[in-house]
C-alpha cells in the first residue's frame, strides 16, 4: 500500500504540487494524467523517494519499488544481458543466478535474439523493453513508470502496452503510470487521477468498471469522450472552446 496524504511540493517560489492525496493498493494500476508540465513526474519521483515533498505525509508499505524512466537509461557499455540484471548485481546476486534470470526475462520480453547486443545497436522500443526488464528483474511489488512509451510509434506502443499489462497481471504487480494521454490511461489504468496545471490539484478521479483485458476500443473512446466532457477535465487540458468543439463533433 502506498499512501500520499496532502503532498505539497515547492520548487523555488513555484508551488508545483498543491495538496495531492492518493492511495495505491497491491495489484492495482493507477494512472496519473494531466497536461504537460503539471507535476506528474514530480509526484511519481516523490513516490519513488527520489525527492522529498515540501510538506505532507508519505507512507510506503511496498517492500520493493522499481522505476522505469521516460528514457531507457541503459548503460551504453553493457550488453542487454548485463543491463537486464544490473539491479540484481547491485543486490549482490551471483552471476549464475543473474544469467538464469536474464534468460527468463529475455524470453518474456522477446529479447532472446539481442542478449549480447549493446544498447546503441537496439531500436528505441527494444531499449525500453530492456529497461522494463531491468525493473522487473528485482521482483518489485510496485512498478513506477514515467511515460515509458514516449518516442515509440503507435504500433510499438500498443505492443509495449499489451506486454506491460500481461507482465503486471502475471506478477500481480501494483503499478503507477504517468501519461499525458487520456486514451492510454483509460486503456491501462484501473484508476485514473487527473491533475490540473501547476500548482497541481486533483481535479477528477476515475475508476474503470472493466478489467484491462475486457476494454475494447469502443469502451476506451466512450470513456475518454465522457472524461473530456467534464468541464474540470477539459479545462485542465486547455480545451477552451469545448462547447463549439462538441457542436462540431455532433455534425
Amino acid at each position, binding site marked *: 500500500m502506498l499512501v500520499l496524504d496532502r503532498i505539497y511540493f515547492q520548487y523555488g517560489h513555484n508551488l508545483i504540487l498543491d495538496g495531492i492525496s492518493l492511495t495505491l493498493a497491491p495489484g492495482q494500476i493507477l494512472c496519473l494524467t494531466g497536461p504537460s508540465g503539471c507535476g506528474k513526474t514530480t509526484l511519481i519521483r516523490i513516490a519513488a523517494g527520489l525527492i522529498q515533498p515540501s510538506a505532507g505525509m508519505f507512507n510506503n508499505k511496498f517492500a520493493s519499488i522499481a522505476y522505469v524512466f521516460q*528514457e531507457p*537509461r541503459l548503460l*551504453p557499455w553493457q550488453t542487454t544481458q548485463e543491463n537486464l540484471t544490473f539491479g540484481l548485481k*547491485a543486490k549482490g546476486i551471483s552471476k549464475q543466478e543473474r544469467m538464469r534470470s536474464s534468460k527468463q526475462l529475455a524470453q518474456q520480453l522477446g529479447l532472446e535474439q539481442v542478449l549480447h*547486443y*549493446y544498447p546503441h545497436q537496439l531500436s528505441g522500443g527494444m531499449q525500453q523493453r530492456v529497461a522494463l526488464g531491468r525493473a522487473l528483474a528485482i521482483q518489485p511489488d510496485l512498478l513506477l513508470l514515467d511515460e515509458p512509451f514516449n518516442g515509440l510509434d503507435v504500433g510499438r506502443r500498443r505492443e509495449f502496452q499489451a506486454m506491460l499489462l500481461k507482465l503486471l497481471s502475471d506478477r500481480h504487480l501494483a503499478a503507477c503510470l504517468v501519461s499525458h494521454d487520456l486514451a492510454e490511461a483509460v486503456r491501462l489504468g484501473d484508476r485514473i487521477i487527473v491533475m490540473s496545471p501547476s500548482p497541481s490539484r486533483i481535479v477528477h478521479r476515475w475508476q474503470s468498471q472493466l478489467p484491462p483485458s475486457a476494454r475494447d476500443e469502443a469502451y476506451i473512446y466512450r470513456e475518454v469522450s465522457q472524461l473530456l466532457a467534464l468541464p474540470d477535465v477539459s479545462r485542465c487540458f486547455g480545451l477552451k472552446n469545448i462547447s463549439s468543439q462538441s457542436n462540431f463533433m455532433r455534425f
Partner: protein
Amino acid sequence: MNLTHWSKQSLSLLKSVWPQLVGLGVFLVLWQFGAMHYGMVVLPSPLETWAAIGRIATTGQLGDALLTTGFHIFAAFTLAVLLGILLGIVAGIQSGFQKAISPIISALQGIPPIAWIVLALLWFGSGSGTPIFTITVTTLPIVFLGTLESIRTFPTPLLEMARLFRTPPNLLLTDLYFPHLLSQLFPSLVAGLGLAWRVAVMAELLSSEVGIGAELNLARINLDTDEVMAWIVIVVISIWVSEYLLLRPLRHLLEPWRSLPTLTDNNQHTPSVF
C-alpha cells in the same frame, strides 16, 4: 566468391583512404621539388631520406634508439596516466581539492617543456631521468584535466538509475564511473601520447646520449642532413604506430561496445566511432 568478397573489401578500403593517399602524394611531390631546388645538404629528397633510414636500420642504431625512446615514453606516460587519473578522480569528487590543485595544474601547463628540461638537467643529469621527468610533468595536466572533465560530465540520469537500485559504491565505480572515464579519456590519451613523443625527442636531444633525440643531435653535428630527415620521419611514423597500432586497438579491446554497428545499419559499413 571469397576472392570477390576480398577484392570488394580492398576496393572499399581504397575508396575510403584515397583522399589521404592524394594528400600524401602531393606532399611527397612538393618535397621532391624542394629537394631538387635546394640540394641534398639543405633538403634531402624523399628517396635519399628513405636510403638513410635503411642505413640507420642496418647498423642497429634504429632499434637501440627506438627501444630507449620507447622506454622513456612508456615509463613516463604510464606514470603520468596513473597520477593524472588518480588526482583527477580526487579533484572530481572533492571540489576543495580541485580548487587547491587547479593553480598548480595551470602552472604546470604554462611552463614551456624546454624550461623543464633545463631544470631536469640540473636535477637528474644526462641519464634517462631527464626525459622521463619532463614527459611526465608535461603530459600529466592533459590526463588530469581529461579525467576531471569526464567525472564532471558523468550523466546524472544514469547515476539516478543506479541510486534507485541501491547500487553499492564499489559497483558504481566498476560499472559506471570507470567505463565512462575510459570512454571520455581516450582523446586526452591520444593528445598526451603525441606530446610525449615530441617532448621525449626534445629532452633527449638536449640532455641525453641515447634515444632518437640524441641520434638526431649527432646527425646534426655531423651535418648528415639526410639522417636528420630520416630521424624526423621515424618519429612521425612512431607516433602513428603508437596511436593506430597500440592505443586504438587497446581501446577496441577495452571498449568493444563502441565499434559495433547498429542493427538498423545492416550492410552499410559505417566508420567506427574512434
